[in-house]
């Protein structure tokens, strides 16, 4: 079952903060975040693993709440370059995913000057 992302869309001014949530109906093992700019390929941002280890992007952070079966992506002091569609991808089983992810429906983030 696909994870649910919220909000579906968000509009910001440069310098503002945003939070994107990703919720699963199943227990999580890992959460992967990708960003896709208009007309481009999705690009890996970050992975969070069960147990709290986080790897990824230095200017964007994320949390992994195992109990709530939810991950949140935090974009602080947003820049114009942050605009795009953000996807979370989940694995619900143990072990490495090797890219076999179940993605959410995406959150469209627009940053204005």
């Amino acid at each position, binding site marked *: 079952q696909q994870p649910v992302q919220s909000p579906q869309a968000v509009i910001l001014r440069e310098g503002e903060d945003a939070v994107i949530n990703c919720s699963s109906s199943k227990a999580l093992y890992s959460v*992967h975040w990708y960003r896709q700019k208009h007309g481009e390929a999705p690009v890996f941002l970050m992975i969070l693993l069960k147990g709290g280890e986080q790897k990824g992007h230095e200017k964007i952070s994320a949390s992994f709440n195992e109990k709530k079966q939810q991950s949140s992506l935090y974009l602080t002091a947003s820049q114009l370059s942050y605009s795009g569609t953000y996807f979370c991808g989940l694995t619900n089983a143990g072990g490495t995913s090797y*890219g076999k992810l179940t993605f959410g429906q995406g959150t469209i983030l627009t940053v204005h000057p």
Partner: protein
Amino acid sequence: DVKVTQSSRYLVKRTGEKVFLECVQDMDHENMFWYRQDPGLGLRLIYFSYDVKMKEKGDIPEGYSVSREKKERFSLILESASTNQTSMYLCASSPPMWDRDNEKLFFGSGTQLSVL
């Protein structure tokens, strides 16, 4: 840098035609994937392959097949295209288990397929 190349950016086909979508990666990745992207539905996995001549169904395999004759190439086949297969198709690859980036997907830019 890893490069995943999809042969066509835009494709227009007629209902009932057999359609081939080609994907090539240049980083010797073992794992390759086909996702379909639709507004409001995100990315959904169609098929994936962990090795040459190996394939496994993803979440929405109906109406599709795949071919992996060489490590670098992964083809998606629509045996008889239908209008509900109009979509953006994204190919991706990921490194082998021993690579520190083995959890990352590297995507191509996509093929926008329209079936009329």
